[in-house]
């Protein structure tokens, strides 16, 4: 079921009913179960959810860099600028990777090749996508380094000579080297300590503005979403359970899981005895519960929630939530 927020101009990225499964040791893991997304040029979409909810799998399916042995895209389409990436041949998708769509990885310590010079790793993506002279390639690679705040003289050094934050800057340099139209940032700051996080986020934000590229920010940190994203999608067990603009989600969380997420953030100015985690455990991906995946942990769950696929419902303030009891939940939350 295609969802488009406003239908006047063609969305830059459109994901329709994406289904991805992993197989390991004979068991199949349902990582992504029918995700629909769309993104306009220059916009940033935040994907929020616990680890293992399938956020990274979605990003990797866009670039088709899932480990081809154990992972399989079972269904759905991914349109970028009108082209369905899943139908492209390998050489064609290789043209797009790093050029039109780029990705920033989560753990900088392992994202860079330890035995290759930092400069060469940046130059490589430039050389692949631009037929220009090697001197020109090196010049542009050095520019990228300067852009992310690393002195060009360190061009010939190795990853082990860089700190965590510096390495993440190199990863960002690699991602932005060819001015990608779409940037996939997979929890770019999780592995960094707090002070460095802010610098990196600011850098990503203004580089994005300079190059007018759109971005998908994957994170489980609601603070990051607030600062960077325009649209927000809450993901649970491989499904988008709530989708809307940042203001709508932060001001009127409608889906019980989203409410639970916000509730779990400790409030600085209140002295709380206990934290408020969401009860129960995240579902086992090899044996997902029927109907709404959240029902075992949902205080409002009824029999209906356990039957069939739950459709999106429009919430009073106009964003979408995949819940049958939206009205009842809002009423109860309003007076809590």
């Amino acid at each position, binding site marked *: 079921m295609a969802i488009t927020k406003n239908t006047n101009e063609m969305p830059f990225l459109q994901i329709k009913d994406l289904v991805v499964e992993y197989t390991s040791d004979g068991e199949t893991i349902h990582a992504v179960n029918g995700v629909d997304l769309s993104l306009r040029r220059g916009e940033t979409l935040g994907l929020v959810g616990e680890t293992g909810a399938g956020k990274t799998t979605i990003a*990797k399916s866009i*670039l088709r*860099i899932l*480990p081809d*042995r154990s992972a399989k895209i079972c269904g759905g389409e991914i349109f970028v600028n009108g082209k369905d990436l899943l139908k492209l041949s*390998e050489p064609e998708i*290789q*043209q*797009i*990777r*790093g*050029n039109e769509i*780029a*990705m920033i*990885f989560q*753990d900088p310590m*392992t*994202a*860079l*090749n*330890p*035995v*290759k010079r930092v400069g060469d790793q940046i130059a*490589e*993506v430039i050389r*692949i*996508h631009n037929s220009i002279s090697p001197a020109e390639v090196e010049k542009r690679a050095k520019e990228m380094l300067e852009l992310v705040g690393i002195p060009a003289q360190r061009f010939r050094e*190795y990853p*082990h*000579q860089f700190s965590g934050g510096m390495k993440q800057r190199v*990863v960002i340099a*690699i991602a932005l080297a060819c001015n990608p139209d779409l940037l996939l940032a997979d929890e770019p700051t999780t592995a960094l300590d707090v002070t460095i996080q802010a610098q990196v986020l600011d850098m990503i934000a203004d580089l994005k503005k300079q190059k007018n590229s759109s971005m998908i920010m994957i994170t489980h940190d609601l603070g990051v979403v607030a600062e960077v994203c325009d649209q927000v999608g809450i993901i649970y067990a491989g499904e988008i359970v709530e989708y809307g603009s940042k203001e709508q989600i932060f001001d009127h969380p409608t889906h019980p899981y989203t409410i639970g997420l916000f509730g779990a953030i400790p409030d600085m100015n209140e002295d709380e005895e206990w934290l408020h985690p969401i009860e129960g455990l995240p579902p086992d991906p090899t044996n997902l519960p029927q109907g709404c995946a959240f029902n075992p942990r949902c205080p409002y769950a009824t029999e209906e929630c356990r039957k069939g696929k739950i459709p999106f419902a429009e919430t009073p303030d106009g964003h979408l939530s995949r819940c049958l009891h939206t009205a009842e939940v809002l009423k109860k939350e309003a007076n809590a």
Partner: protein
Amino acid sequence: MFKYFLKRLLWMIPIVLGVAIITFTLLYFTPGDPAYIILGSNATEVELENLRETLGVNQPYLVRLVKYLGDVFLRFDLGTSYSTKTSVTGELIYRLPNTLLLTIASLAISVLIGLPLGVTAAVNQNRLGDRVSMLLALLGVSMPSFWLAMLLVILFAVKLHWLPAMGVGGLKYWILPALSGSTGGIASIARQTRSSMLEVIRSDYVTTARAKGVKERNVIYGHALPNALIPIITLVGTQFGMMLGGTLILENIFGIPGVGSYLTTAVSSRDYPVVQGGVVFLAICFSFCMLMVDMIYALVDPRIKAQYEGKKGK
């Protein structure tokens, strides 16, 4: 880097000295003496005793040790063989090319065939290609090289007369020896490459490379393999040692006048100068090659190079 290389070279001197002393002591306590072998069964005890005196075989341990160490380390003279009276150094230098040629040929074949085999097995893991190559590798590792050598001789030399089974000469003399020498090597390198590639293929920087739009071939050979090389190089180092030993037997079978067969005959005929000289000679070549292996580490992995330059070695 060069400082580390020099330090390791200097460090080889005490090691070679240690090897010389250990070999000398081992041989000193080996029962039996060369007299009978030199004079044959017609010799009487008087003649045998006369030869033992001339060769100085009956002198006490310390006298001979000091004389031997003096010769080797001060005058660089490995002495002359008891039986053939030829200078050991000359003989070893004449024979070394054959042994090194066989060892390096076997090693080269092992790496050139073993490596790609291992990589393809790792890349399409658990598919047909992987199963077949790993089963053949298992067979290759389990086959004793000297038995395989004899099987090849039976088939290609004795039955089909395609290849000469013996002696030294043009290229076709080296096919069978190199083949039997390298089968074990191909198998173990393929297995090691497969397991270290499997570890590396899942790491994040390989995904980063793919995300950069790098072609699959370059991802595997350009990004994954260099990182998988370290354990493979360690194995190639130990393989070199084993092959140097293995060629002792192959030289015996194929009649190649190499250092190996020279030493094995010398050990059983108690030709002390030859054994002592030969072992010291081989130990020097061997530790030099081990040093080369460590240097290759530094080339392949900058972190190890930094470690060498930074603190005092391993």
